[in-house]
């Protein structure tokens, strides 16, 4: 099974934003609507799409796509 890319999930979370696929490490605050609440919802969307769960610490520490990708890789997922 292939998972949607993190950029795709970001587009689903922010359908009205202009998201640059060439920027690998987009972070909280890079889009006007990407605040901490929206980030929480984004992480839950990733959990849903990848069938993983981030613990409390990860929820507060993962702020950008690269860190999220590394965490998913550490959980044994290919993205």
């Amino acid at each position, binding site marked *: 099974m292939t998972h949607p890319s993190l950029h795709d999930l970001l587009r*689903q979370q922010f359908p009205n934003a202009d998201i640059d696929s060439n920027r690998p490490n987009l972070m909280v605050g890079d889009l006007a609507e990407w605040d901490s*609440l929206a980030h*929480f*919802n984004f992480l839950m969307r990733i959990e849903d799409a990848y069938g993983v769960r981030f613990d*409390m610490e990860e929820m*507060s520490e993962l702020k950008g796509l690269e860190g999220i990708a590394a965490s998913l890789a550490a959980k044994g997922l290919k993205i």
Partner: protein
Amino acid sequence: MLNKVRITSTSNLLPGNDGWRSLADHYDLDFGEYGDWPQVLMSAEAAPVIWLCFLEDLVPPHIVPDAAIDNAEPFDDLLRPLVQALGKRLADTAAPTLVVWSAWRPASPVRAARDGDPWRKLARHLDKTLNELAAGNAGLFLLALDDVLATSGLDACFDSRNFYAARCRLSRRGIEAMATAAAAVFARISEPAKKVLVLDCDNTLWGGIVGEVGMEGLVIGQDGMGQAFVDFQRAALSLKQQGTLLAIVSKNNENDVHDVFKNHPGMALNMADIAAWRVNWREKPDNVQALAKELDLDLDSFVFWDDNPLEREKMRHALPQVLTPEPPVDVTLWPGLLGAMDELASFTASAEDRRKTEQYRHRADFIAETETADNEHDFLVTINLRPHIQAIDRATKARALQLCAKTNQFNLRTRRHRDADLTQLIERAGDGAFLVNLEDRFGDHGLTGLVIALPAATADIAFLETFLLSCRVLGRHLEAWMLKALIDILSHRGVDWLVAEYVPTKRNVIARNFLSDHGFIALSGLPPEDRDRVQAATAEMACGGEIYAANLSSLSIPHLDLFSHDTSVSA
């Protein structure tokens, strides 16, 4: 543009979360500020409100054991802030309020085994308190969230990480299940349930094809699958009790199907449970269209249940207005699925709803006989029309509200009164507000007419606030009798003029003809001094429609010889 719904909660709701989709697709969701529920409930917010209430947020669980002694008073104290805020909103506005409440917290089954858990007692007390409030408030709707979430698993729907990280008690799945259930309740507030369930026969009501295996070979009533088919029929019967009409559309020989209904000992449904039949070899969409015509109902009030995927596809293609669900291949799931279908579920069922099938059959018989009668008047004399007036009281008010909500054709002003304003109107109208019951040779049609005539600014003038007649008794001139009954009441009070307003809608032209056919004169046709007086006395009550007036002393009403004229009120 989407209608606004104000959402507020005792905890965070993660606005923007994907789980909200089923509500967000249909409404403009306004989440306000975190924790603003007291302000929202106290502010007479005009939009519908969804209040998510987690008991744990309002009552710290550790204080409950101290409060839990044998009487309920401490519980009432704990719940007072909640009840007061909610009561304030219900008193201030008739706009819908949906309370979604949860008392779930992890607990040992051991404590509950001897009812030693004070938290559970408090939860039951909240349940009781909310239901009592709802019984007295037509604008209050309840969603017991824990029951809803149990289907998906409470452990999967609550999320302690989300709570400690973001003050949201629910998981994404929990938000989704809650939003879907709330959307179903909201859909029913704005539109009525589907009215007709169309059922196939072979492999739907029973296992096997009657034309091939004969009545003896059918799977129905025995243990195993036979029991599943019976339970599916019972689920349909229970919908019928709630007011859904059942119809049969089957490709079969009619005699074979009737034979099973009449003579198979395993059948739960019998002939009298079915409002209309189409058992023939025609295409099913044609048959459903014919049923819609026969029952005088729109196609979008039909649900079509058939085991055959090809028939379902044909129906969806030809009649997309008809709701055609996709039942699973496993028939053992059907009884539960049919019983739980949101589209067929209503908030309450009145005594009238339970008798609907019978009444639609009377109506079909009446139409069939009218069509063959040579002379309308002579025919109507033979059916022995026996109307009577029924006062609007506690027992009958629900029916009056239902008539206001549902009557589209014979309805002068189509005012969709809610509970509170109807109560006020009835008070103002006194005996000028009443329901009408009709019996005739075709049966008891129940409460089918509603009249509300209000005193106008001048004592000798009355205003016809509501005048409506259910479509099931149209064609009998009952409206003439209703008008006469009202005039008798008004004349006793010294009223000389009855003013009526016709507010046109897409479907109520029949009501305009009624006015001109029964002696009402359009305002412009009145002598100027009468016109000015009538207009001045009723200006505040009219709402922009066409105004008609009738002088009661000179009014001659047609068709009254059809009725045994008794306008006394039954208590």
